[in-house]
């Protein structure tokens, strides 16, 4: 700008919602913003560096590529890769906006629940028609919290059904330490339920996502795994 001194853009970059990482030629991180720090809790920096190299423009400049990327509950719809010399390369990932139900959670449906009981009953139901071996890692001391018992049981039945061909099923149920989600303008801790196998059917993914959304449960549907982040509501 005429007459102005060079502006330090670091603050704006630091606080930008989209993760941005700058690598040197060896893949070491030169700079990363706050959003990228969160992202690196879920993905290895080497994977991001490889992604940057794979989608870099053919010549100096920038290139934006639409793609579906999922790292745990973080979902992205595009990446931009930029470089202006041979020494450094930057990558920026664009968050997919979360589709949120406008309906607040119906408080009359939420009952204090021992989620382990629903999980155990659902596994008993599943075990009647499947000879799956279960590897359970559940926190038996998880306190009761408010849950739509009928809705969550339906969600669990349909989810387990997607693993009907699996010989082994790994299920974990724990509090997600240090993580939270905003529900009706309040920050809530997260109870994380993960169901994992060698593979699964995906014919009901849409239904499962819709059922979970109704209960404000964040869903991650991987090839081998389904993860639910359930808001821990007690009052």
């Amino acid at each position, binding site marked *: 700008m005429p007459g102005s001194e060079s502006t330090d853009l670091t603050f704006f970059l630091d606080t930008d919602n989209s993760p941005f990482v700058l690598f040197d030629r060896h893949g070491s991180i030169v700079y990363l913003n706050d959003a990228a720090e969160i992202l690196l809790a879920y993905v290895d920096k080497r994977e991001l560096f490889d992604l940057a190299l794979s989608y870099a423009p053919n010549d100096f400049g920038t290139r934006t590529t639409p793609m579906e990327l999922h790292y745990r509950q973080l979902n992205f719809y595009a990446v931009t890769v930029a470089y202006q010399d041979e020494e450094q390369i930057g990558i920026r990932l664009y968050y997919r906006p979360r589709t949120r139900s406008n309906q607040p959670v119906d408080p009359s*449906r939420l009952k204090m629940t021992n989620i382990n009981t*629903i999980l155990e009953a659902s596994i008993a139901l599943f*075990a009647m*028609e499947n000879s799956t071996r279960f590897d359970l890692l559940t926190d038996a001391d998880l306190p009761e919290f408010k849950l739509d*018992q*009928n*809705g969550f*049981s339906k969600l669990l039945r349909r989810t387990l059904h997607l693993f009907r061909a699996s010989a082994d099923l790994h299920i974990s149920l724990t509090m997600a330490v240090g993580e939270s989600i905003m529900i009706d303008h309040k920050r809530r801790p997260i109870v994380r339920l993960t169901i994992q196998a060698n593979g699964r059917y995906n014919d009901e993914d849409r239904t499962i996502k819709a059922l979970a959304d109704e209960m404000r449960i964040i869903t991650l549907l991987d090839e081998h795994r389904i993860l639910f982040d359930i808001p821990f509501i007690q009052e």
Partner: protein
Amino acid sequence: MQNYATRSETVQQIIKSLNLTRTLYVSSIIIGEPWSGKRTLVRHLFPDLPTVDGHDQEAVETLLSQTDALIIEHYEKIPNTERLDFEDKHIIAIADYAGNTKILDETFAFIYHMPPLRERPEDILLYADLYQKEAAETLMLDTEITLSKNVLDIRQNLRSLRASIYREVLLQSGDRDALERGLHHYFMGQMPEEADYHRHLGLFEKPLLEAGLHVYGSQLRLAEALGINRNTLRKKIHAWL
């Protein structure tokens, strides 16, 4: 409370799951052939829950508006299930068949399939034993009864099994007078259309020869015991067995 009689692993899992969810506001349905034991099971586990029959839509709707927990029998007979709201209720529905599985999937959190008796051989023997004792007690019999597997009728699950055992117990416990009265009734029903002497003779000769062969082992010994010629016996065996 006495345990529900079953040795079937599947039925035990149903009991486990129903017990775990007994304090939850969830909707469950048990689907199974008539007389497979599902209604007895539910009544056994939830003796205090009010029960309503699906044939009567109005009664179902009324009870739903009055209580948080109920049993609905013959769920498949409800004319308009879409008018029912099961949210925030503890519902246990019982149905003889599944009907529209998509609607069931959307309506119920827990969907159980009660296996028919033919898929629960361990339960056939268990119930045969129970019904045999029950029959002996009801009919005040002291005689020892031996049940053969091939008389157990499970085409209508527990219903036909129970009936077949009662029939067998009655037959085996009958004395000469009872057998004669039974045959008398039978012949009265047959005549005048079926009066041929030789045709009815099998009623006497066939069981006699079967029992005789079982006891004496060979035709030679049986002919001696019966006091008839060996060739005559062979002809009779050829004719009836």
